[in-house]
């Protein structure tokens, strides 16, 4: 006997959890299946940037949709996911002055999409953000971006979905999915089966295992972020802070939570092991990250980090997710492979996927995310 519903979602990260919540909003019955526990990998271990600035211009409508959800998250979820609209500042170094032009160009294009950015340099930058080191040349400030707590976000969406009637099975590893007649039959490792006419795959780095079963393999690569956190210090740094650079090793970002701890991320992303369900922070990446943090904000050099962590993220070659309907199978949808940039747009993805499934379409531009872009030939 299969458990039946209108929609099965495979993958209980932020995408799957928020999709479940918004599907319930359309009165669609939904079963969410998660291998481990909700939001434990990419969704729960990322930096927590709720940042529109820096995303591809084509993605800003989706990001705007998401920001509206973040802003009402407390009422929507009945829980505090520590969302703070406290700004985001992206800076470049003196040795890359050409990036100032890129920032200006981006700001002009972003304004047309409703994202207002303020370009700062010299004293104006340092008066507002005195923690920057001498290497910092200029910055682009987004007052309406911010950050939230990834450990809490996906589980809060899942709990809210459950309260509205979504059926959620954790510790349910899916080993097979097939379309038989009008229904998808999804089979767990322990033999339980689930049946629904619609299947949404939000399985992150594991997404390819399912899309391949429907003849749509994607070149996804599992990697893991390098995260660190300091001991708590008095709350003084409001915005999330990041560096714009073409060199992955130079990438570094930080944010201070209201309790006082400063969360750090960046440097070359490490390997991760989807089969073992583990990702490890490579010590040399921590070293390189701390070196870059000292360059960006030298005064942080007085603090200690107390913990590092990583998680399993799925990366696609063009850094864009796979999102939208399958090209081979009707009733099948995907939203995975967010390439380390899914947290902010997550709730917008959930709402958009629910809209597509409930109404058959959306105004959001989905072309860049077609799974067909990886089809052979």
């Amino acid at each position, binding site marked *: 006997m299969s458990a039946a519903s209108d929609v099965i979602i495979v993958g209980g990260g932020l995408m799957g959890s928020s999709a479940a919540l918004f599907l319930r909003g359309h009165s669609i019955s939904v079963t969410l299946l998660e291998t481990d526990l909700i939001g434990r990998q990419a969704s729960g271990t990322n930096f927590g940037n709720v940042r529109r600035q820096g995303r591809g211009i084509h993605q800003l409508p989706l990001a705007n949709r998401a920001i509206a959800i973040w802003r009402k998250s407390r009422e929507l979820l009945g829980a505090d996911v520590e969302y703070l609209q406290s700004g985001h500042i992206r800076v470049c170094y003196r040795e890359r002055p050409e990036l100032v032009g890129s920032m200006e160009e981006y700001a002009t294009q972003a304004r047309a999409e409703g994202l207002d950015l303020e370009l700062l340099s010299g004293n104006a930058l340092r008066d507002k953000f005195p923690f920057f080191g001498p290497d910092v040349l200029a910055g682009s400030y987004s007052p309406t971006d911010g950050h939230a707590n990834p450990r809490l976000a996906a589980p809060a969406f899942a709990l809210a979905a459950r309260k509205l009637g979504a059926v959620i099975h954790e510790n349910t590893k899916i080993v097979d999915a097939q379309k038989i007649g009008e229904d998808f039959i999804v089979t767990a490792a322990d033999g339980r089966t689930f049946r629904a006419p619609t299947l949404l795959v939000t399985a992150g780095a594991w997404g390819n295992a399912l899309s391949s079963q429907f003849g749509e393999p994607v070149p996804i690569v599992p990697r893991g972020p390098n995260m660190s956190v300091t001991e708590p210090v008095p709350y003084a740094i409001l915005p999330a802070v990041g560096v714009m650079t073409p060199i992955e090793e130079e990438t570094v970002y930080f944010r201070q939570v209201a309790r006082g701890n400063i969360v750090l991320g960046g440097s070359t992303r490490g390997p991760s092991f989807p089969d073992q369900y583990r990702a490890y922070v490579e010590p040399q990446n921590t070293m390189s990250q701390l070196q870059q943090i000292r360059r960006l904000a030298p005064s942080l050099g007085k603090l200690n*980090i107390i913990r590092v962590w990583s998680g399993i993220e799925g990366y696609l070659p063009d850094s864009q997710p796979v999102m939208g309907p399958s090209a081979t199978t009707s009733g099948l949808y995907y939203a995975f492979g967010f390439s380390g940039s899914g947290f902010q747009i997550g709730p917008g993805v959930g709402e958009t996927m629910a809209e597509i499934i409930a109404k058959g379409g959306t105004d959001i531009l989905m072309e860049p995310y077609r799974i067909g872009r990886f089809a052979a030939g």
Partner: protein
Amino acid sequence: MAEPRIIIVGAGPSGTRAAEACVAAGLRPIVIDEGRRDGGQIYRRQPDNFTRPYRKLYGTEAGRAQALHETFDGLKGAIDYRPETLVWNIAKGHVWTASATVQEAIPFDALLLCTGATDRLMPVKGWQFAGAYSLGGAQVALKSQAVSIGHRVVFMGSGPLLYLVASQYVEAGAEVAAVLDTSPFGARLKALPDLLAMPSVLWNGVALTRTLKRAGVMVQHGVTPVEIMGDAESGVGGVRFFAGSGREETIACDAVAMGHHLRPETQLADLARCAFAFDPGTRQWLPERDDDGRSSVAGVYLAGDGAKILGARSAEASGRLAALGDLGLPVDKGEMTSLRSEVGQYARFARGLAKAFPWPARQAPALPDDAILCRCEGVTAGDLRAVMRETGAQEANRAKAFSRVGMGRCQGRYCGLAAAELIAAEAGVPVEQVGRLRGQAPVKPLPIAIGDGQ
């Protein structure tokens, strides 16, 4: 073949004896230790300018302490000794060290983890007040700095260290207001057959209680702590507890030393990816090892109290065993056999200690909602219960993610065992089902300035 690169982490009893065995075999191990001087915790050496005699510092163990220190002093020219150095991570055949802000990645062929122990603590309401110390911390203050943690000290908890540190305070001239043992006296009688595995150690324990009695210190058994009274401003003001008779009592004091025996420091074994197994006797997850200290990971060895609490004497034997096992040199099989049987005797004695001074697991679920459970993050027992109710979290790392219990500087080393007991009792599951907090680098806080200018 090139000489194997051997790294020993820890310069206490097991690390010292492991290093001694390596040097005798003609090898030059790297010995990395967090302390300023060798000796570890139990045989902690006093600062250079202090001149208290061995007898005064180490009591009945003075001879062993002196022998160990002299051994280490004799090894110094033959080992690569790195004091005041933290191993903060282990990955791909390298240990990552930090000494002040100097960092290094050192490759190894064999890694001996002799990481020792810290106090096993059961939270008591009010334990966050200034003046509440662990037994180990109280002992460090005395040994290393020759100071008492307060003018009038209550010792509360259980285990051999409770009596040892209390009697050391008495002998140092400090005022010990009371020794409050959560274990009923009868438990000791039941444990006697196992404790007789080490008659001399048992006798030392009896001598400690005599010292306390002679000094007129009140000793109570079978107590249940209720709270450490005080406030954030002035710190500890007293303790409130139920006596064995069931009567509620209070004792005024300005400091409390607390603890329930010890727990191994296993985070490095975890980072080295050693397999762990639940030990029902101590209700702790311990790294797996064979009789000679081999972990589940080839080339990684575990010895001393860092693997399992068997005491300082056993640590010397297990340190030597772990070093001898795979050196690839001819070993004296008779010695190996006798070392193994020595460790076996200590293991029997340790089982006796666990029976005589049982871990009061039921105190954790009895903590009132307003009692601080995790001192680093200021999380109360009520906060954890609320998280369990709201999220259904029943696994240690999951409960940590939602409640922040064990997320602070100590990474749950001090609150993790009690938190697991509370979760298990609330969820109605065996404590092993709650799992264990994953070790995460850095095992101790690491300066962001690490490696600056290197």
